[in-house]
């Protein structure tokens, strides 16, 4: 992880505590944390066994849902019906 401004970054890393990390785990996994903050949180996670474990638990659950919940296929006749009805409109 790049640290352009060491003083600043160390201070910020120290300010990150486990509660904050745990609270934001899902936001990290959902891609909802800004890059700079995400780096700080991930840095903490790398160094903290408990947070790292929770991170992997949440990550694997998200991956589980994505992999098990596949999209269904709509019937060809529905697509045709929609196309026909749209064609008929002026």
């Amino acid at each position, binding site marked *: 992880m790049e640290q352009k401004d060491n003083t600043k970054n160390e201070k910020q890393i120290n300010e990150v505590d486990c509660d904050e990390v745990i609270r*934001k785990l899902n936001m990290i996994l959902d891609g909802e944390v*800004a890059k700079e903050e995400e780096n700080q949180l991930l840095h903490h996670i790398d160094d903290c066994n408990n947070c790292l474990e929770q991170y992997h638990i949440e990550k694997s659950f998200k991956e589980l849902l994505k992999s098990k919940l596949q999209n269904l296929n709509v019937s060809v006749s529905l697509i045709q019906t929609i196309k026909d009805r749209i064609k008929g409109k002026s």
Partner: protein
Amino acid sequence: MKQKKTPDIKENTTEETQTYSHEEKNENPDAFLEEELKPITLTKEEIDIIFEKEMLPHINALYTFAFRLTNNEDDANDLVQETYLKAYRFFGSYEQGTNAKAWLYRILKNSFINNYRKQSKEPNKIDYEEAETIFHSEKNNYNPIDSRDKVFKGLLGDEVSNALMALPLDFKTVIMLCDIEGFTYEEIAKIVDTPIGTVRSRLHRGRKMLKEMLAKYAASLGYDTSEETQNSEQEQD
């Protein structure tokens, strides 16, 4: 992954979660379509081309969403058809270049709520209150259920799908939008018409409920890691 802004970092634990706001406000859920209606300067041919290129490719995802909302193939078909016909009729309110899929989802979700209201059904109201009571406490974020467990991996798609569909409407909706479709919190907030903080807390509670349901379900099927003799179904999928 797209770089996204963090719209609101503060954890909003005290907020009241809501049901879909249209259920309470008794307004036309499709009002946004009419309000945003702009004059269409395209010819029918041009519209048809854009429609086929940008709207129709999302039909399987929309059908899946509709099916998991209604748990019924015919209702899901009707809902998808209604969505596309509305999208075509109100094509002028679609801002080209914006997320067509999110726009379609919003129309579908509103149509679903509207149809429910017509049938004077109140989807999941009791479930919802019960769930609120059970999952009210947000303080303990450490989840005792380990979803890396092979118990979870052994679940079949249908089993996960059934558990998801059994969740109260508000919770399964945000999980589908976020975890399956990958919409941003901001897009989800617009689709379900709630603040972003509500989206986040529903995701948190919904995932927790789903995890607990799946753990219980897996245990009831004998998917127990403590036993060496595993259900053979685990090997499938």
